[in-house]
């Protein structure tokens, strides 16, 4: 990490921090088992504070340690700074300060690195370099403040700049508007000329679509079930890993106004089975969120934690924060967790195994998500059934059939360099995760499924659930619109099979939820009034398909979600699967809300309130007060 005289630095650190014999022995043991630099191992174990760490480094290296980064920044020579990019500053951990009489003064958090000297020679034409030591956090802050506008711009627009056609910043293209308007117009003309057959046609198309959709999901479920027989990464694989060979792993944790969770979050991530000094944990905080920053500082996490302050700029969304965090990631791999998440402790190691075993085409492995508060109420039970069905069967099914996989919101494990080359997340898409999965596929990458679980908090409140779901469905609509802009070229890239699967899965999810209420409405109208009015709309063939959908389709829908309990053995949830039609109706309500927002405020991020579960491991103070 520091590229400096390792031995004297380690000794210095032990002296500066006054470590006990047991602490030194433990640190040596960890160091022997996991490798790396001794000083950084001690710091990551939380035995020393950052100032102590850098004071020791200053002693060992004989360099002056500078504080007050804001003052330093004011005196940097802009003629030198403009020759650097933020990528270089972050990668090499230094900033040029001044050039005086042929001597280049640099601010560095990693003194003594040959790469730094080479870059300075190449950029500034001098090999006379004087180093001024600053802490890595100060250097991060200096870089973030100095390159602020560039970095904000890239965090928001990197995906758009890379390929505007893959950005949801534009909701509809002109071609799409013309195409849809043409279809609507043609239909209206037909409706005018022949009411009966035009409506019959629409109903027939929807019925066939529903039927195909159910069959497709059944096939996926069956394919996904095969995972039970062939788990891709097992405990032996994880045990066979040597800690010394593990790469640095970055973990992004976006938080906003959640001071209460910080302590538990730090404790929680300590339980991860991964050498702490190889974990690069970044807490992503919004600039105006002083409360959480204070709480985080007060919790004094070990030196491998960094607080990344995301600058105030619109859109203020999780994908923008994650893009910003990605700039600072040191890891070879990276994952995202929410503050409340409880990941399987071996998840990161499983991901390393999965990446090493998979071919170079893999950009991401998605772990399964499930809920720790299933038993809280009816809604959380239904939600858990849905998640089990989705993450335990459907996504593995897509994986098995090599189809595009929309990612879930957290616990997706990325290859950092490939993620960067994909342009990161799209801050204009309200399901940036799903969009990224599809983009990866459209660019010829693959997404895999990891048989490891992260437990999250299920939304336990109806209104909150509707808001969250409407955001998800709106995001699916955005994603579908983005990847139907150039269907022919996309089919050429990924093939017809994947293209159809994407349409059924992403477009179909939204369409099913939108189309269900009118069809159910017609059925209920007929059931209650026995009116003959709808009969002409259901000629024999359409009627048979409709009956099959009504009986077999709905049965299968319920049955599939019953099967979903098998993998985890959560059998008490089984009877609740019968209530699935109610859940579908809720999805439809959310879908109509999403459709409205797609036109009125497409980028609006419906925030989901977390930490409201009675069963949450830790709750927000404000909510706890309300409950009391």
């Amino acid at each position, binding site marked *: 990490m520091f590229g400096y005289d390792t031995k004297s630095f380690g000794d210095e650190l032990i002296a500066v921090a006054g470590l006990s014999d047991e602490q030194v022995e433990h640190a040596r043991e960890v160091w022997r088992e996991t490798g790396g630099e001794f000083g950084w191992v001690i710091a990551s174990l939380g035995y020393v504070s950052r100032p102590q760490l850098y004071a020791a480094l200053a002693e060992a290296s004989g360099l*002056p*340690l*500078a*504080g*007050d980064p*804001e*003052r*330093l*920044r*004011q*005196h*940097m*020579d*802009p*003629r030198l*700074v*403009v020759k650097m990019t933020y990528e270089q500053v972050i990668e090499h951990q230094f900033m040029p300060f*001044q050039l*005086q009489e042929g001597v280049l*003064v640099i601010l560095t958090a990693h003194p003594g690195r040959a790469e730094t000297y080479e870059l300075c020679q190449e950029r500034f034409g001098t090999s006379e370099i004087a180093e*001024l030591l600053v802490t890595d956090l100060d250097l991060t802050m200096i870089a973030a*403040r*100095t*390159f*602020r*506008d*560039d970095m904000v711009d890239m965090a928001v627009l990197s995906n758009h700049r890379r390929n505007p056609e893959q950005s949801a910043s534009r909701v509809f293209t002109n071609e799409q508007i013309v195409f849809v308007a043409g279809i609507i117009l043609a239909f209206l003309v037909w409706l005018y000329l022949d009411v009966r057959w035009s409506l019959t046609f629409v109903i027939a198309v929807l019925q066939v679509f529903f039927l195909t959709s159910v069959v497709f999901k059944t096939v996926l479920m069956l394919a996904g079930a095969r995972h039970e027989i062939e788990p891709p990464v097992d405990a032996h694989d994880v045990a066979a890993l040597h800690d010394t060979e593990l790469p640095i792993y970055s973990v992004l944790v976006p938080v906003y*106004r959640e001071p209460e969770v910080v302590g538990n979050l730090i404790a929680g991530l300590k339980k991860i089975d991964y050498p702490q000094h190889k974990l690069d944990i970044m807490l992503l905080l919004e*600039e105006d969120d*002083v*409360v959480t920053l*204070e709480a985080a500082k007060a919790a004094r996490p070990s030196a491998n934690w960094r607080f990344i302050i995301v*600058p*105030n700029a619109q859109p203020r969304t999780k994908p923008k924060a994650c893009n910003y965090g990605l700039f600072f990631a040191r890891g070879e791999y990276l994952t995202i967790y929410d503050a409340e998440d409880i990941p399987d402790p071996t998840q990161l190691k499983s991901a390393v195994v999965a990446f090493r075993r998979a071919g170079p085409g893999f950009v991401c492995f998605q772990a399964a998500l499930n809920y720790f508060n299933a038993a809280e109420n009816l809604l959380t039970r239904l939600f858990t059934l849905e998640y089990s069905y989705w993450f335990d069967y459907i996504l593995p099914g897509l994986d098995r059939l090599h189809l595009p996989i929309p990612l879930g919101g957290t616990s997706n494990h990325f290859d950092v360099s490939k993620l960067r080359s994909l342009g990161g997340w799209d801050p204009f898409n309200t399901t940036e995760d799903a969009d990224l999965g599809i983009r990866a596929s459209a660019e010829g990458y693959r997404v895999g499924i990891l048989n490891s679980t992260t437990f999250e908090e299920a939304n336990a409140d109806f209104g909150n659930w509707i808001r969250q779901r409407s955001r998800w469905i709106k995001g699916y609509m955005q994603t579908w619109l983005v990847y139907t802009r150039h269907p022919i070229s996309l089919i050429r890239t990924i093939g017809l099979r994947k293209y159809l699967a994407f349409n059924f899965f992403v477009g179909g999810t939204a369409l099913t939820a939108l189309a269900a209420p009118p069809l159910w409405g017609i059925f209920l109208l007929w059931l209650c009034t026995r009116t003959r009015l709808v009969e002409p709309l259901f000629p024999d063939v359409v009627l048979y398909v409709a009956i099959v959908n009504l009986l077999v389709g709905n049965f299968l829908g319920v049955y599939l979600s019953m099967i979903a309990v098998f993998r985890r053995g959560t059998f008490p949830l089984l009877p609740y699967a019968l209530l699935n039609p109610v859940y579908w109706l809720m999805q439809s309500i959310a879908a109509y809300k999403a459709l409205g927002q797609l036109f009125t405020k497409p980028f609006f991020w419906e925030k989901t309130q977390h930490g409201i579960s009675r069963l949450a491991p830790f709750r927000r103070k*404000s*909510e706890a*007060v309300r409950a009391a």
Partner: protein
Amino acid sequence: MNERQIGAHAMPDRGRILIVDDDPTLRVLVRAALVAAGFEVIEAENGADGVRLGAQSNPDLIITDWEMPVMDGHETIRALRNDAATATKPILMLTTRSKTEDIVAALDAGAQDFIIKPFRKDELIARIEQQLRWRQLLRSDVPTPDPAVAVDAAAVEPAAAPIEADVKRPVQEAMDRGDLRGALDLAVADAERAESERDFMRAAGLYRGGSSAARRMNNPDLANKLLRLAGKMYLSWAETARADGAAIEEAYGLAARMFMAAGNLKVARRLVERQTP
């Protein structure tokens, strides 16, 4: 109001809040939320009463409505700011207007923050707590210059901007009161009168001082804005010093430094190019 809230009302320990609003329902709502959170609450039903009560009761924070009879929110804030007793109190504006220009108007009038009605209780409390915390930080946060850096910095410190005592004093006083916006107004008014090199340097110096204060108050947007204004002052100087090559170079160099510090490297890059033709 239940007994727990009344109990909390009787034993306030978190601070005293003055609510100025003509709508009794809203006052009851806000009061209930604040009392439950442990604040002491005083109410005024119009701006004039608010100003009077503000002067008498020494509140820690004032919440005021925007649209009111007698004095509207804007006038109320001006009056509160002009009264020595309430000049430095944090003010939150409650408004039904969510358009940017209305929010800017509220902030311009001297409010520290705004809340859009209908508001969430948690948000209201969080914003109040944040304001009070900043106040506390501001009182305790005295920056200590690092001696090692000070030596380095002194070597490259540009010719110190001559800051006239008569201009500096009111600005400094406003800053000391925590009235950053007032200080900014004074500095802008002074900069608008700038004509000579001396004036530009002085104005730039004021902006830089304001920027440091804004940074300490955790207001990076304002800090960067002030740095850009300082940069513009150095640019104006460069333009007036057409004949003097060395002065132009220095002025562009300083301007580039300001834009760099404000995080705008695009402009800094262009200025560096101009500095070294």
